[in-house]
């Protein structure tokens, strides 16, 4: 992927054990910030996009962009075309505020664009 290209992915946010345990210490703890401040990409997509663990990527939703390091998901856990982030500040920033009359914004299975560099101003 060249640095200005964007590719459509589906973002899944969810609980992870480490997010759950570190939350108890503090939401400002190193562990919590680390766990909720990365995006998981499946190994095949990582290779295809020329990414290595720790590279910063830009994820853009309709509302916002964030710049965040990536890591490879465990083998076979994440299918191609999906991204995973542990719930937290960063995953929530990508969330819209439209709740479609339900009180709940879409926060799983949302369309996002992944690129190597943030084309627009990021949060």
């Amino acid at each position: 992927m060249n640095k200005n290209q964007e590719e459509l992915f589906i973002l899944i946010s969810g609980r992870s054990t480490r997010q759950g345990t570190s939350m108890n210490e503090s939401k400002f703890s190193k562990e919590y910030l680390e766990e909720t401040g990365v995006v998981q990409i499946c190994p095949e997509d990582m290779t295809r996009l020329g990414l290595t663990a720790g590279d910063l990527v830009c994820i853009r939703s309709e509302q916002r962009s964030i710049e965040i390091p990536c890591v490879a998901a465990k083998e076979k856990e994440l299918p191609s075309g999906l991204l995973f982030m542990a719930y937290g500040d960063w995953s929530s920033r990508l969330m819209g505020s439209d709740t479609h009359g339900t009180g709940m914004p879409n926060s799983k299975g949302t369309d996002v664009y992944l690129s190597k560099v943030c084309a627009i101003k990021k949060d």
Partner: protein
Amino acid sequence: MQNELKVVSNATCTFCGCVCDDIELTVEGNHITKAKNACVLGKAWFLNHEAGEGPVARIRGKEATVEEAVEEAARILVDAKFPIIYGLSDTTCEAQRVTVAIADWVGASIDTTTSVCHGPSGMAFQGVGEITCSLGEVRNRADLVIFWGSNPAESHPRHWGRYSTMPKGLFVPNGRKDRTVVLVDVRRTKSAPAADIFLQIKPRKDFEVLWMLRALVKGLTINEADLIDTGVTLEQLQNLVDRMKACKFGVLFFGMGLSMTRGKHLNVEAALALARDLNAFTRFYANPMRGHGNVTGADNVVSWQTGYPFGVNLGRGYPRFNPGEFTTTDTLARKEADAAMIIASDPMGNFSQAAREHLASIPFIALDTKETSTTRAAAVAFTTATYGINVPGTVYRMDDVPIPLRPAFESPYPSDEKILRALEKKVLHLLQAKLQASN
């Protein structure tokens, strides 16, 4: 403080909706050093709870007396035109009840973390009804257990072991061997290896697949072509339907995978309708995997006091309910709230940007046991003692079973309930004064 050693048996963990009440805590002074039976999340919950530091009360970041802070908090609520109150999932029912009272007196909107968790499930339930059971029914009878859009290995680690797949039960004498476990999710999560059948569904296809299962249950014809882009095959679905019809007791546990994705309450309606339809053939149930410790309690308290479960407004002097209108993401993102009280939750850390920005711009009160982005931005912040660790009270498990808390050690901080009672008193006092002034 002397480091007295004591053991608290039958203690209740309130980290997740499992609300395990068989924890044995070893307490040394004001530290819990062991939490026997607790899972990794529960251990972190108990062992990481320190006595805390810093003042009980702060006004705009500066230390204040509790009286001053309560006065300021009451003034914020009483002077507001559209105050909102949110959170409540991580506190006792006793505290929740006082909170709804305060909302009533000031005519606030009252909403709980349900609205961003299983609120859509609550809406689906209002449309279709639900066929549910307590977890002990699953333990004693279930021979088919399905998890849909839920990753219990990481969100509810003891669910399988204590309630749903492993335990031996009255009519399930061989425990796990007598059960078939099915997992349906978009990712092959850490829960997958322990399932007998894993169906990897494509994102945003849950409604379609559930609806097709309903059709198959009713004997309608589905073509393979209808299943393109769902990630599952007709054979897989027919196999699942055959198992569901043939089981003695089936249960579908569903999580955020249904309520948080496109369709939301419609996804859950499909699941609830499927479970209901299957009762023509066997006993079948659909239960939500509730998240935080006492979010179920919050639902119950708000429901019995107002008649509605969440997203309630009391501004006209009586309860009105409308998800999307009175739910907190909306009243914040649309900039309608002009004051807020946030209890035991962290919207500044996990709401949408628009909601966070607006919350930061209005005066709000925060009660929490730890420092969070929300308490840092609050006009009035109270540090309170932790329920289940320092504070006794009542909580409700994910299946509506009420359970008492057994605290481990006392905290120098007051409980949520104590602060809220003082706040209620002050609010009533200010309202009385306002009324007299206008007469």
